[in-house]
């Protein structure tokens, strides 16, 4: 493919790329504002815990 078709194709791809980047940026801002509005900023909820040795203790119920 060459000539004017190549030029049109490249302009199309550049434009599409810019649209995708802009929409991704908007999405990141929306997602992160939503997270921040949650209690404790949304990223430190109690259920997202680190490993607890009781998780593999089969002799009693885990915490």
């Amino acid at each position, binding site marked *: 493919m060459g000539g004017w078709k190549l030029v049109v194709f490249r302009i199309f791809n550049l434009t599409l790329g810019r649209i995708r980047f802009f929409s991704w940026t908007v999405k990141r801002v929306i997602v992160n504002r939503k997270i921040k509005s949650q209690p404790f900023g949304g990223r430190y909820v109690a259920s997202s*815990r*680190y*490993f607890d040795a009781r998780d593999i203790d089969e002799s009693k119920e885990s915490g």
Partner: protein
Amino acid sequence: MIETAEILLERVVGQVPRILGLADRREGSRAYGCFDRYYWHYKLHDWKNARFQEAAYLLALLWATPHEKNPFAGKDAVRDWAKAAMEFWSRSRHRDGSVDELYPHERSFCATAFSACACLHAARILGTEPPDMASTLRFLKRFDNPDVANQRAAAALALVLGGEYEAAAKKISALVESQDAEGFFPEYGGGDIGYQSITLGLLTELEKSLPETPENVIFDRRGLAESIARGIAAVSGVIDEKGRYDNRDSSRQTQYLYLHSFAGRNEDVIEKVIAGLREDAVLQPGWMDDRYVIPFCADYLLTYRALAGLDKT
């Protein structure tokens, strides 16, 4: 040797709580089984790094390694988390069977190869059915990376584990041919000791995984064994008494040394690394970042199992 090698198991077990902390272990969560904490918890990334799912293999190995210093052996929870890691990996794939590592829609050959190996190994150890691998194996057959031997070796291993012997034999043959006169496999234009040790570890696993009598496919087992031996010889001479080496001339300037390939071939190197571990003088799994602590732990555990005679189970 086995008594001194316990330090390898200890260093792995010491990292497992951290690795488990990377995982979403809440049953019913949409990200249950995801080990990429930056994705499911911190939401810093819009995509999952599939390499974290290699934890499935590490957990399966832990589950299958009985030892008084391994509290994870035989535990149902550990087996369930390994299965969850495999299932999350399977759901994360693109339609062509590939996965992403560094950016969305990457379709990474490297991540697909390594994570596929991990899931196939884990399924075998746990005695469960692996995810449907057809699309992933097609992807690995279709693509290659001749500049990066460790990725090619991982792809070859995944193909062997998945039963695609003809395609695996081609990749193995190409890999052996790419070895230079000194015994180094290519890593972006030169030899690299750390990645060489990864490639050798993968080829060691591959050698152990080759079927006895595959249909219509002839593996050059002798050529593979000689290639591994040459690769080990290339590395062994540059390791100091504490398991370290000068990485300044390595093509990728890695600092670590994977040990599995040295078990049964040159255990002096393992002894040197153990000496370095005792003094905390050598790079070890606990010093690695969250991405690479997982496969490095798996390598140490594979090494321990080989030395303890457990690698037939």
